[in-house]
């Protein structure tokens, strides 16, 4: 049994507990896998890998070449798979596109090697449990309100992968992880949004408790796909441009302009859904009348002009409460993993305390 101080005042105390009671956070994303591991109670190590793969023809690339070039790969059933950024590099060279273990925030069931590749990549980030039953809190999306699937199977698969590595898996909604990471100054009250590749996840919290959460499938991939269709261009090319040169603030090119049209549409669509649910929550929780803050994280927020455009759209929406602030998170790609870490740590601290009573 780990001994916990009865009153905590400084992070120093918590550092001591963190050292004694290690937990890990894991963001299982469609495009990126990110882990958060405490190292000796003072530092958090964040590790990241692009969540993509590509099968390689052995006749073209010998395994020896792979080793020499520091390429990330796995050999599974004697088939070679390049992983992460290496898969991207090779795909570019071979003029093809990478494959993904996940799609729209959940396991991509049409990729039959996806699950094993996911386990390989998760293991490369977090290794096995440091002690039997170490807690690993992993992110799951919320159920989408605009698609028919749910996340139950996906959640089960990740839990199995983690327990087979010796962990006690603890699922946590991605958008609530954003709240835990970013809304401490607001006493964990407000709306966290994660603008990911596969999905957009939303959660409203009141003092750290989830009041509602939902997802939409109109994430980054959906935008890229639609812009590509509208302009009759390749989707991977559009994604590339979006990540490197698109300007939502001062759109100049056709791609910029199409991006602005789709982003604005997604913002308005999302904010209307948020406003509707806020009204319902307000009936039960009049405390919300003081207003809420909206914080956005995830890869898409990195687009130039994203927050400005989002704020602009929010001005056109009628909310039942004041929006005190609408801002971008501080560490856009690490927010979810950090929130998962904080959740695991908090839950287990409280669990220990309850058991000691």
């Amino acid at each position, binding site marked *: 049994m780990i001994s916990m101080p009865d009153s905590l005042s400084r992070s120093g105390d918590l550092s001591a507990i963190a050292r004694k009671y290690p937990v890990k956070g894991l963001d299982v994303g469609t495009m990126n896998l990110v882990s958060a591991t405490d190292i000796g109670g*003072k530092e958090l190590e964040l590790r*990241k*890998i692009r969540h993509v793969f590509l099968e390689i023809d052995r006749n073209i690339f010998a395994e020896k070449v792979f080793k020499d070039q520091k390429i990330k790969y796995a050999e599974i*059933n004697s088939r070679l798979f390049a992983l*992460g950024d290496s898969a991207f590099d090779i795909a570019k060279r071979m003029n093809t596109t990478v494959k993904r273990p996940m799609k729209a925030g959940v396991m991509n069931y049409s990729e039959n090697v996806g699950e094993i590749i996911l386990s390989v990549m998760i293991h*490369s980030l977090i290794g096995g449990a440091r002690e039997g039953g170490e807690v690993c809190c992993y992110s799951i999306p919320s159920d989408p309100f605009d698609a028919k699937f749910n996340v139950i199977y996906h959640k089960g698969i990740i839990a199995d992968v983690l327990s087979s590595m010796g962990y006690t898996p603890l699922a946590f909604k991605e958008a609530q992880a954003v709240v*835990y990471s970013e809304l401490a100054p607001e006493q964990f009250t407000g709306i966290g949004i994660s603008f990911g590749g596969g999905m957009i996840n939303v959660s409203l919290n009141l003092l750290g408790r989830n009041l509602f959460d939902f997802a939409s499938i109109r994430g980054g991939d959906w935008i890229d796909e639609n812009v590509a269709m509208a302009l009759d261009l390749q989707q991977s090319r559009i994604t590339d441009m979006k990540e490197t040169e698109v300007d939502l603030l001062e759109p100049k090119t056709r791609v910029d302009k199409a991006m602005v049209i789709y982003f604005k549409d997604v913002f308005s669509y999302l904010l209307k859904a948020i406003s509707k649910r806020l009204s319902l929550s307000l009936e039960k929780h009049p405390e919300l009348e003081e207003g809420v803050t909206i914080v956005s994280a995830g890869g898409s927020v990195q687009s130039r002009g994203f927050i400005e455009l989002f704020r602009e759209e929010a001005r056109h929406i009628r909310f039942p409460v004041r929006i005190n602030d609408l801002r971008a998170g501080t560490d856009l790609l690490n927010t979810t993993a*950090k929130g998962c870490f*904080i959740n695991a740590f908090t839950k287990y601290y409280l669990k220990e305390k309850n058991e000691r009573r």
Partner: protein
Amino acid sequence: MEEERKPYGCGNIEVNSVHIPGIQSERIDISKDLDNALELILLMQKKTKQEKPAALPVPKPEPMPQKSQTRGGFLFLMGRAAGLVAKAFKEVGSGR
């Protein structure tokens, strides 16, 4: 045994080797996050005192599936496959 593997949908899965060098990694000061966790803990404690004590999720450590005889089908294979992953890592090195 053969039958149990079918639900996985890809026959016999064998991870022969894993080679993942140079994973992108950074270290950040944890104290801000721990301070945030402290805020949250205090909030939760206040809440639980006000309400009746909330049941916190207390997942039990799962037995390692490789050793489990009772798991069938898919779960068994995930466990076995993941065991192979771990073994491959040990042998080849994960770049950690």
